[in-house]
């Protein structure tokens, strides 16, 4: 391979990993909701859209940096998620006659309402937050003068990625080291047994829906400096989260992280080598390949190693 080709490949992989880190955060939120509630939250991307608009408004009015607005958007989204769970999803969950499929349809409806509200308030205009570091980047040639290839690292993409990593690490710590985190994992594995341990299962469900929403709300803030915003922007991210959740193995947090990275890299490769517009197609190709060849997702591969089956 000649240097130019290597340059393109490396640059593509870097972009893919950065995108994948952000995708992982979206997928994680959906995954923990899936784990505890046993439903796919198809309003997930729309919740992210709400997070983006919160960050946008704070930027437009107060010139608050989108990264700082996480501190506002995440708690607000937590509340929104908890309210949605308690007053909309939970009552439906309790009716035996309603199939789980219909609870999923309910989340589709919630997503549509959120998107329509956004259209009413903000119109369908495309918006961006013109942060002053939007086009800032680091170049390989700045640190290595004689480098035969040139690579660049976008400042906002890198910062967003780092935030995603830190939030993911925080979530990891919470789920693996705290009583509450362990109770959430226990509820996801066996809710009746968790109840026998004294876990307030109802409360855990509400909390988990809130936490998943807060995570994707934070992801919205991280996307604002690098993406454009419009009321229907959520749909594609719902789809992304859905693919990652399947890819990861329906409820496995580690699987979701791997799934997010794989999807990010795959989309980036598709965009470079097939064509910009083909990235969504790449997403579906991954999706179908996984369903056919690893129906249990990443988690089933890990489990096979651990349990020897």
């Amino acid at each position, binding site marked *: 391979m000649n240097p130019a080709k290597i340059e393109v490949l490396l640059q593509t992989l870097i972009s893919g990993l950065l995108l994948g880190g952000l995708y992982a955060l979206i997928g994680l939120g959906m995954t923990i909701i899936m784990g505890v509630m046993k439903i796919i939250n198809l309003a997930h991307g729309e919740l992210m859209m709400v997070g983006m608009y919160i960050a946008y408004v704070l930027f437009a009015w107060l010139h608050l940096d989108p990264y700082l607005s996480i501190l506002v958007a995440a708690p607000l989204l937590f509340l929104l998620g908890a309210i949605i769970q308690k007053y909309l999803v939970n009552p439906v969950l309790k009716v035996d006659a309603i199939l789980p499929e219909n609870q999923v349809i309910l989340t589709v409806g919630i997503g549509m309402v959120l998107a329509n509200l956004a259209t009413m308030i903000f119109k369908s205009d495309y918006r961006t937050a013109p942060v002053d570091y939007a086009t800032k980047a680091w170049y390989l040639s700045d640190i290595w003068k004689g480098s035969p290839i040139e690579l660049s690292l976008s400042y906002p993409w890198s910062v967003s990625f780092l935030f995603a990593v830190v939030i993911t690490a925080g979530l990891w710590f919470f789920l693996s080291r705290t009583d509450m985190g*362990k109770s959430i994992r226990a509820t996801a594995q066996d809710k009746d047994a968790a109840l026998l341990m004294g876990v307030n299962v109802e409360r855990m469900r509400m909390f988990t829906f809130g936490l998943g929403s807060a995570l994707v709300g934070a992801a919205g803030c991280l996307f604002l400096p690098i993406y454009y915003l419009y009321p229907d922007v959520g749909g594609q991210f719902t789809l992304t989260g859905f693919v990652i959740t399947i890819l990861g193995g329906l409820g496995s947090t580690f699987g979701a992280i791997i799934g997010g990275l794989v999807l990010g890299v795959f989309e980036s490769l598709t965009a470079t080598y097939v064509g910009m517009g083909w990235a969504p197609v790449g997403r579906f190709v991954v999706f179908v390949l996984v369903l056919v060849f690893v129906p249990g997702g990443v988690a089933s591969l890990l489990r096979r190693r651990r*349990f020897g089956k």
Partner: protein
Amino acid sequence: MADATPGTPMLDVSGIDVFYGDVQVLWDLSFTVGRAEIVALIGANGAGKSTTLKTISGILRPRRGRITYDGRALGDVEPHRLVELGLVHVPEARRLFVEMSVEENLELGALRGEARRRRAETKEQVFSLFPRLRERRRQAAGTLSGGEQQMVAIARGLMGLPKLMMFDEPSLGLAPILVQEIFNVVKRIRDEGTTVLLVEQNVRQTLAIADRAYVMETGRVEMQGSGRDLLGDPHVKAAYLGL
């Protein structure tokens, strides 16, 4: 609220009717468990033994009747508060958190109150009761052998510092030598002051350690008596001991 005096039974189940949907499974079921007793519920498959335990621990609600535990009417208590009150249920088929480590399973047994405060201390105690679990503390619970998993289930229950411990077929599927070990552990738990309600299919061994037992058939109590009397009863012999 009634006082928790030593005179009152630890558990008083009085005339409960329990349904799955429209299907009635327990019919006017009543029994009591005295303090520091081992009381056994025996009966054929489908008699309603597990349903009884699930109702006591609040997974199911009785449509009629009342359950009093340690002087408290359980209808007024949210199910997730029961562990804190010392009512612990070691469920049928163990129901471990299979993807979590042995240690995490134990920790989940002590989430609240006094049990949470004394978690480290209690953990040492259950490890000395089941030394095997100390060696396996970091291993995923689902990768243990059946006998080890049952030990985790019992140990996890003990982590809650139970006053009343309910076991649902703890010896199911274990080799005879382990079955005996499990019965010894149950006896030892009672000897240390915990009241035991034991559901079992190993009728002979159960009646041998039980102070009293109730025989259930299709959701009703058909017979009751001391363990010794029931062991000698011709109907029990014919139906449950294969004699």
